């Protein structure tokens, strides 16, 4: 049985001489936070699993915030001449709904899964840079809170999530909302960038022995593609946001037409970021589904290589299509033609994936769990969204559809149908892994059907009202101009509003499910070790996993390693038969456990550094002195960070380390 040792000073064997200055001496009275229970163990943690769960909880919170914003929008449009929101508030509402859902829900929820699962899937004990990981999470939280404080401080951003210039200039948007938006995204951008670099290094460097890139679980592959997109897309939005900040705060004129500027500059920069961003949103869902479908079809993923390469191809071509968001902006015929063709091209790898998923299910013994239902839901709904997407690729028809509800319908089918359904499939699939308990399948089915019916009720009619010409972002419609019969805008708007509440009930059922499973009096039994007869490495450890993930780092021989350890082909009959259970495999792994495992210790610095950033943000908006103050905290935190060893010194423990064992052999932490 492996034990996590309390590390002793010579853990720093690499640096030669033992530490002369211990951390506690170096930083005055503060001891290194080392507790493993209580709130401290969460706030200062560097454990990728705890951080993953925190990402999930916070993202879920913002999902509810964004959901309430969406419901308010739908309430406003439920009847003619809605009076729920004022025009200004309505603008803020749709801007913040989109921003929240994109940046504060889908991206961090994907980060939650990535953080939690990638190290487990590749057989590592943590990510490459645990403290940077913690920093990324706190940055995201700080940025998200900063962004939302704008509601209390004079109004949120109101320029649409793309914040087109010059509409979002100080002249047309005098509140501080846009400033909060820009700086808030800047901070969450830092979170994404550091997270992305961290995960790439983790995936490329820390795979278990034997796991070549082509034996890597497909979810990890998709996460890898996404992180590359993030690394290269985030700096572009950073430039755009800085230009925006200089424009609004320091009087530059980058987007000021009267000064001779070209407002298209903003649109280009935004969409160069924005289109890869679209794939950043949807690829995690693809990855999850590519894990879920094979497990519940009891077949290997059809065409693993094709799924991998089409994922990479989507990531690559995604860089060459940004201007299709701008067909209506007068780019000129050559640009429009080029980007139109490129956009049609990107349908090919997406289609390849759909075909692969379908063929994975074909002939399989399908087990309709909630998770599987969500996955199938994704395949169907995303295909609908993808098809309406192809109609946008055709520039002439796009010109007709631009800025109508047809677009709204399209991207909700892709993002809700692609990303959100995928994430829910992930919840149900990995819940027993993360928390050791199964979510109720009965409530899960309710959750699924409510959400799937709700989404089709909400977003389906938007195709109709969009083609009828109802503009997007319109805060009011009147009975007099709603039209007749089947194409009556009012009727379909009401249907959409009803649908949005059906979705809301579906989400409520999910929350109820979570609460029922985990409430104190819950009789939910502990989940079996391998409830789904799963295929990949993360199931080859306890549920929930121990702090160090694996007692012994497994050696990988095949794609779907866990499956191949459970099943063998009988050479005489050609039949596949079960040779071991998950428990037996786990016991075998535990038997050869590493003797000594060292994990990095928790740290104060990530959270301090992260919360210094919004301080600087407020400084930019209100008082330049705060920038200086925030900057000093940043500088201090970075020095503290740089000088802090990754494992805590003995003297940080209270009471001091028992035994301390100074000359034991050291196992590497992955």
């Amino acid at each position, binding site marked *: 049985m492996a034990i996590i040792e309390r590390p002793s000073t010579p853990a*720093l064997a*690499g*640096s030669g001489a033992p530490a002369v200055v211990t951390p506690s001496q170096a930083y005055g009275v503060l001891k290194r936070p080392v507790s493993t229970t209580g709130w401290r163990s969460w706030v200062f943690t560097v454990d990728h699993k705890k951080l993953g769960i925190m990402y999930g909880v916070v993202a879920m919170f913002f999902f509810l915030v964004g959901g309430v914003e969406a419901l308010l929008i739908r309430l406003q449009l439920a009847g003619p001449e809605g009076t729920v929101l004022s025009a200004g508030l309505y603008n803020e509402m749709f801007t913040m709904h989109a921003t929240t859902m994109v940046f504060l829900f889908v991206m961090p929820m994907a980060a939650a899964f990535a953080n939690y699962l990638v190290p487990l899937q590749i057989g590592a004990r*943590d990510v*490459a*840079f*645990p*403290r*940077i990981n913690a*920093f990324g999470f706190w940055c995201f939280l700080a940025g998200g809170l900063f962004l939302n404080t704008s509601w209390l401080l004079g109004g949120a951003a109101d320029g649409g999530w793309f914040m087109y210039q010059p509409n979002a200039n100080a002249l047309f948007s005098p509140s501080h909302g846009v400033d909060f938006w820009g700086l808030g995204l800047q901070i969450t951008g*830092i979170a994404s*960038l*550091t997270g992305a*670099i961290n995960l790439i290094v983790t995936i*490329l*460097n*820390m795979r278990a022995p034997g796991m070549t890139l082509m034996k890597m679980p497909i979810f990890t592959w998709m996460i890898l593609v996404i992180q*590359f997109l993030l*690394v*290269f897309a985030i*700096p572009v939005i*950073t430039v755009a946001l*800085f230009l925006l900040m200089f424009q609004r705060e320091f009087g530059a004129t980058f987007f000021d037409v009267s000064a001779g500027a*070209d407002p*298209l500059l903003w649109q*280009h920069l935004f969409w*160069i970021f924005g289109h890869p961003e679209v794939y950043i949103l949807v690829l995690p869902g693809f990855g999850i589904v590519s894990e879920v479908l094979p497990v519940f079809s009891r077949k290997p993923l059809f065409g693993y290589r094709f799924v991998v390469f089409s994922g990479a191809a989507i990531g690559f071509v995604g*860089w*060459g299509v940004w*201007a299709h968001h701008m067909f209506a902006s007068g*780019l*000129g015929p050559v*640009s429009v033609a080029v980007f139109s063709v490129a956009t049609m091209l990107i349908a090919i790898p997406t289609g390849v994936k759909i075909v692969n998923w379908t063929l994975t299910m074909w002939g399989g013994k399908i087990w309709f769990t909630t998770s599987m239902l969500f996955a199938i839901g994704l395949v169907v709904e995303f295909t609908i969204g993808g098809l309406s997407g192809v109609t946008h690729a055709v520039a002439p028809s796009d010109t007709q559809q631009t800025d109508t509800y047809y677009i709204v319908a399209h991207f909700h089918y892709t993002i809700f149908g692609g990303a959100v359904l995928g994430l829910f499939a992930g919840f149900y699939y990995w819940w027993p892994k993360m928390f050791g308990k199964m979510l109720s399948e009965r409530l899960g089915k309710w959750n699924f059907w409510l959400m799937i019916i709700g989404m089709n009720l909400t977003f389906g009619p938007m195709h109709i009202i969009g083609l009828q010409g109802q503009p997007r972002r319109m805060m009011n419609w009147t009975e007099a101009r709603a039209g007749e019969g089947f194409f009556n805008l009012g009727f379909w708007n009401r249907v959409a509003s009803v649908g949005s509440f059906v979705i809301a009930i579906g989400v409520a059922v999910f929350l109820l499910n979570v609460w029922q499973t985990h409430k104190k009096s819950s009789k939910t039994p502990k989940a079996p070790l391998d409830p789904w007869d799963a295929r990949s490495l993360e199931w080859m450890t306890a549920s929930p996993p121990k702090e160090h993930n694996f007692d012994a780092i497994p050696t990988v021989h095949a794609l779907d390693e866990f499956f191949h350890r459970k099943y063998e082909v009988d050479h005489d009959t050609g039949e596949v038969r079960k040779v071991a259970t998950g428990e037996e495999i786990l016991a075998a792994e535990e038997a050869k456990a590493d003797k000594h495992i060292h994990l*990095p210790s928790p740290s104060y610095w990530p959270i301090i*550094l992260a919360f210094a*950033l919004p301080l*600087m943000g407020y400084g930019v908006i209100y008082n330049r002195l705060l920038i200086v103050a925030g900057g000093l905290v*940043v500088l201090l935190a*970075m*020095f503290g*960070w*740089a*000088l*802090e*060893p*990754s*494992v805590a010194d003995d003297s940080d423990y209270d009471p001091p380390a028992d035994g301390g064992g100074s000359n034991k052999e050291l196992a*590497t*932490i*992955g």
Partner: protein
Amino acid sequence: MSTTADHVEHGDHADHGDHVDHAHEPHVHEHKPDSYYVKVALILAAITALETSTYWVDFGAFFLPTLLILMAIKFVMVASLFMHLKGDDKIFSYLFYTGLILAILVYMAFLATFRFFSPT
């Protein structure tokens, strides 16, 4: 962006204790004598001097291509010799040049949509 630069930097080396798995990050490039680097720097300086001379001497039609080629040479020299890309694991080159080439392609296309390269 500067802040990003900073903490990634610090985090980077601070965290090296965290991942002990150094085997995958080879730092085994042979160390050249200092005189070698001085020679490289002299060549770079000479190129800079040549570039600057365009300010006084008229190169005619060769002006723009010359400058761009000299710039590229300097870039590659610093990247592959000073930054050891040449001797290091290929993966570093891939990562860095992916970013670079992507940037060039995307921003060329971007400027092209503004008809930046066409004579007006």
